[in-house]
């Protein structure tokens, strides 16, 4: 299957899947921190590898990345990406402790952030699973604080055996509270090349226009 041959209907379906996932994730997250969490309508990005890094500020940009492998019938990867400040703000709200600062050495901060990741990625994938009727389970969270290029390449490797570009369902998580008290971040879904066919088949839109 070639990405460039995706029909408008197929691209819209991917966007809708992302939207359903994001809605579910936002609801779970706002229950956890008792604040409104807003997730934008996702965009479908079909981008060259170098441009994937540009989506998050360039290959050398420092980011906090939590990676989940998707196990099941439609494998892939989910990334949750934050700046250090965004990660810190989220951890403070989860722990109700405004003194805490986010470093990779702080076990409490790291486990709080991983737990937030579990809830976001878990509820996102549950919604996808329910909608497509394809079993998708997140792995345990893997956290790294490093250069965007180094963190994101891991998710591109599987695709890179087949293509020179990636298709990414990109959802922004927005702060709707004043004084930067909400949460901000980015959720990327990277299905493996073979998963697109399975998703489209499940939705009955496998044939081209």
């Amino acid at each position, binding site marked *: 299957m070639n990405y460039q041959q995706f029909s408008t209907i197929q691209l819209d379906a991917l966007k809708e899947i992302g939207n359903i996932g994001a809605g579910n994730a936002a609801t779970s997250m706002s229950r956890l921190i008792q604040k409104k969490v807003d997730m934008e309508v996702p965009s479908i990005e079909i981008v060259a590898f170098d441009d994937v890094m540009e989506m998050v500020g360039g290959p050398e940009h420092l980011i906090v990345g939590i990676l989940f492998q998707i196990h099941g019938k439609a494998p892939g990867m989910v990334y949750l990406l934050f700046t250090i400040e965004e990660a810190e703000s989220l951890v403070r709200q989860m722990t109700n402790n405004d003194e805490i600062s986010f470093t990779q050495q702080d076990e409490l901060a790291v486990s709080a952030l991983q737990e937030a990741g579990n809830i976001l990625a878990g509820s996102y994938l549950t919604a996808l699973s329910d909608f497509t009727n394809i079993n998708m389970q997140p792995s345990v969270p893997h956290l*790294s604080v490093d250069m965007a290029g180094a963190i994101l390449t891991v998710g*591109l490797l599987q695709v890179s055996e087949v293509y020179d570009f990636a298709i990414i369902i990109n959802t922004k998580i927005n702060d709707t509270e004043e004084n930067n008290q909400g949460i901000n971040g980015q959720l990327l879904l990277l299905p493996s090349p073979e998963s697109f066919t399975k998703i489209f088949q499940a939705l009955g839109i496998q044939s081209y226009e």
Partner: protein
Amino acid sequence: MSSKIQDQSIVKVGIADLNVVTAPDMIRTSGLGSCVGVVLYNIQKETAGMAHVMLPDSSLGKQASLNKYKYADTAIDILVDRLCSKGIRKSQLKAKLAGGAQMFQINTANDIMRIGKRNVEAVLQKLEEHKIPVESSDVGGNYGRTIEFNPQTGKLKIRTITKGEHVI
């Protein structure tokens, strides 16, 4: 040539990409994780080539049209050819390399997660085939690297987030 000072520029190499520069220009690639940055150079000619290799072996490719810059084996062959076409003999080339980290400790049967180590091995094997000596290297670990090579001095500067900056 006049003694006018030439403008120095830094040539950037992207992912699965390669390029060649001559002094005073420098060459750089950013955010290496499991990928390996390979530099082949000749100090006398003040010329260097750099490849940002993503996968070890072009036989892994399932593509109809192969991107030869993506794989260790094909990228190094091209780099050697490019440098030789600039009047440098293969026997005069030296190599430096950096990268090949494992960013996440993921336990899986899938070999793709140990790709950093395999990339380094593939690069070393290819350099051995070409009989190009490796002058220095900084590989492995679980952190990202940005590297910059100066073809005039032969020095490779490595920048990291947690381990600071050093030169090999």
